[in-house]
């Protein structure tokens, strides 16, 4: 069933139609966010589903049905449903300088910086989506394969980071068969530039399943592994990935403060771009994201490294302990999303009934007044998630450390962050 391109294609085509409708409704519909399909479906439905289901359960499954690169891939391959073969339209290789996560980090910080307005103004959301769409299409005309997804997309960076923890993985049944196969068909068709027999991490595998379809020996399959199986190794993490993981920790906390915190004034400050108060917010945002949290992590690593007898280079140490950031980051985002979605999900039905905010009443639900409330169940689940993340990170820290003493600074980092998130979400 996975070998047929049809189910995936139909899903993608429908999502592409929904995506285009989202852009349209952002531009044409009511500019009152709570009554516009673009705001409610992108930032409440999709963004929540991504963080609560797609990433933790399926890693990069969203990437496999994402509509944004579809037109670009169509142009690149001169077809939608045909096998990709060796690149039919020769593209340039992505520049070496940007073969890392720094562009996604930059994109994600930018989105977080202007988050208050992007998440509430339909027109701004539409501009962002259209911008990503055009950029992805343009880049696929210049560069080979899914260059945008792999090296630029801010959401892709986010997903890839935590896809390391998720169960689905592409694996080879009989490695010796691949060693004998000289043509490397799977590598040639891979839009993500991965070579399945050598795949050590799920971070950059888009789960598009093209390798599975291209393998002449039917030697590749999609498997499920235990959650976090890749963690202690976190193979192929770079300094950029570690920085991205730190950015995720900070933005999860900042978003919790802005969107769920009791400080309403902060939300309005984040919204009034350009005002003196906003500059203070912007400066503190950058300071926290780019300096304070990375500095705290650096300090923790420095202490841990002092205790460890065998010394790496400091850069390698920074990367070595990086995996502890993954579980707490993912569960914090999940807990935040759970809190956010449980109060806002009541907007979904009314906006389906009147997607453009033009006063339609397609389902007879337009006047269902949203009632946002946090249930104790959701609070318990958030606590459970944060605790689970902390436990998993602790386990990872223990495995990475040679002695208990070495793990103490790492545990302090995990405990401090978890405590802050607990306080922000439940306190």
């Amino acid at each position: 069933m996975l070998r047929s391109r049809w189910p995936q294609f139909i899903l993608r085509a429908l999502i592409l139609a929904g995506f285009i409708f989202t852009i349209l409704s952002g531009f044409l519909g009511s500019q009152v966010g709570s009554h516009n399909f673009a705001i409610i479906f992108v930032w409440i439905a999709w963004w929540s589903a991504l963080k609560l289901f797609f990433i933790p359960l399926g890693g990069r499954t969203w990437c496999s049905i994402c509509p944004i690169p579809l037109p670009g891939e169509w142009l690149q391959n001169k077809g939608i449903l045909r096998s990709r073969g060796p690149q039919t339209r020769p593209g340039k290789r992505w520049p070496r300088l940007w073969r890392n996560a720094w562009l996604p980090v930059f994109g994600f910080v930018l989105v977080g910086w202007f988050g208050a307005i992007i998440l509430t103004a339909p027109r701004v959301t539409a501009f962002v989506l259209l911008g990503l769409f055009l950029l992805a299409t343009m880049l696929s005309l210049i560069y080979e394969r899914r260059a945008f997804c792999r090296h630029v997309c801010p959401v892709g960076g986010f997903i890839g980071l935590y896809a390391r923890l998720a169960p689905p993985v592409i694996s080879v049944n009989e490695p010796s068969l691949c060693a004998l196969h000289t043509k490397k068909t799977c590598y040639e068709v891979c839009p993500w530039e991965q070579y399945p027999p050598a795949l050590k991490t799920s971070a950059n595998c888009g789960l598009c399943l093209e390798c599975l379809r291209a393998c002449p020996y039917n030697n590749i399959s999609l498997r499920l592994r235990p959650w976090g199986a890749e963690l202690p190794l976190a193979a192929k993490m770079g300094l950029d990935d570690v920085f991205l993981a730190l950015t995720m920790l900070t933005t999860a906390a900042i978003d919790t403060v802005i969107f769920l915190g009791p400080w309403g004034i902060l939300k309005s400050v984040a919204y009034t771009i350009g005002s003196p108060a906003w500059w203070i917010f912007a400066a503190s945002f950058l300071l926290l994201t780019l300096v304070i949290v990375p500095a705290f992590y650096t300090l923790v690593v420095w202490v841990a490294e002092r205790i460890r007898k065998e010394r790496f280079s400091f850069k390698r140490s920074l990367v070595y302990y990086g995996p502890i950031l993954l579980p707490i980051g993912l569960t914090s985002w999940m807990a935040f999303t759970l809190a956010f979605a449980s109060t806002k999900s009541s907007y979904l039905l009314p906006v389906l009934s009147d997607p453009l905010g033009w006063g339609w009443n397609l389902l007879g639900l337009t006047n269902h007044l949203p009632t946002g409330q946090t249930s104790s169940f959701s609070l318990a689940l958030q606590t459970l998630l944060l605790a689970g993340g902390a436990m998993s990170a602790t386990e990872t820290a223990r495995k990475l450390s040679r002695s208990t003493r070495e793990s103490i600074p790492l545990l302090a980092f995990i405990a401090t962050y978890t405590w802050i998130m607990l306080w922000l979400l439940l306190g």
Partner: protein
Amino acid sequence: MKHEHLARVIIVTLLALVLALPVIGKFLWHLSYPAVLEMHARLPESGGWSPSTITVRSGQPITLRFTSEDVVHGFAIGKLNQPEIEILPGEFVEATLTFSAPGTYTFYCTRWCGPNHWRMRGVINVIGDGSTPTPEPTPLYLVLGIDLDTPHRAEIMPHRMADPQRGAKLKDRLPAYALEHTTYLSNSPASLWMRLRAEPSLQVLNDDDLWDLVAWVWEQHTSPQAIATGQKLYAQNCAACHGETGQGDGVMMRDLSPPPSDNHITTYNGHTRPPDWSDPRQLLGASPALLAGKVTRGGMGTGMPYWGPIFTPEQIDALVAYLYRFAWNALPEHPLKR
């Protein structure tokens, strides 16, 4: 190859469908509700009412469908006694209006939606047959040739709170002109006091007695109902700038500095707060005709809106009568020690 073509057809069809959706939706909507006029409310900085001018035939009902695109607004038509309509962001509310007489009606926002709230106005032109409403008389300030923009501080002021009840005991001594309505309209309390002071027949009364008489005269030209009406209008429409206690410190003005001199004079450097009416000299030097003129015409360049198209003459009279309360009540109960 067949599959590839089918896939392309599916994509193109889906996209065409999605692009057509808003257009088809709008078309179907208009078919089912042909006679409804959609009225969008936005902050004046983002465009105010849209449309801001409506033309309608007298006697023909018109259904307006309101929605707000930013904050809560309100809709009301000046000089008509109709309940205001609350317009919530993203929600729709309908109202059907019928105008019996041709003329020009001003509609306005009734919520303090933002600093330019009062600019949020529009016009309904009612055309067709029907008795045209009798034109309103020329405002008195124009008849009397009062310059609304010159300072009008009272030169003299009571030393203690003037008491109309004490004044009532002396009312028989008043000259006949002092009881006429035109005298009240065209004199400020201070100028009436000066005229009375100059009367030889009143030489026996002291200054405070005369102020009691003036306060009594002022009370004769209003009623508790009018004061109540004035108070309500003030709270709804004026307090945003002039402040609930008339001190010129309303919510819309708090960031501005107090007026530089004794009057609310325009400077090209920007607006200042309205004058502080807890200083009795401000209002005791103003005649009802002058105050009514300011309300009707608005303050040139001061940011004070014109209420002529919105308040009826009776409402303006009630408002003016209420305003004097700020001055009378600001006087000390016991004489000032000097």
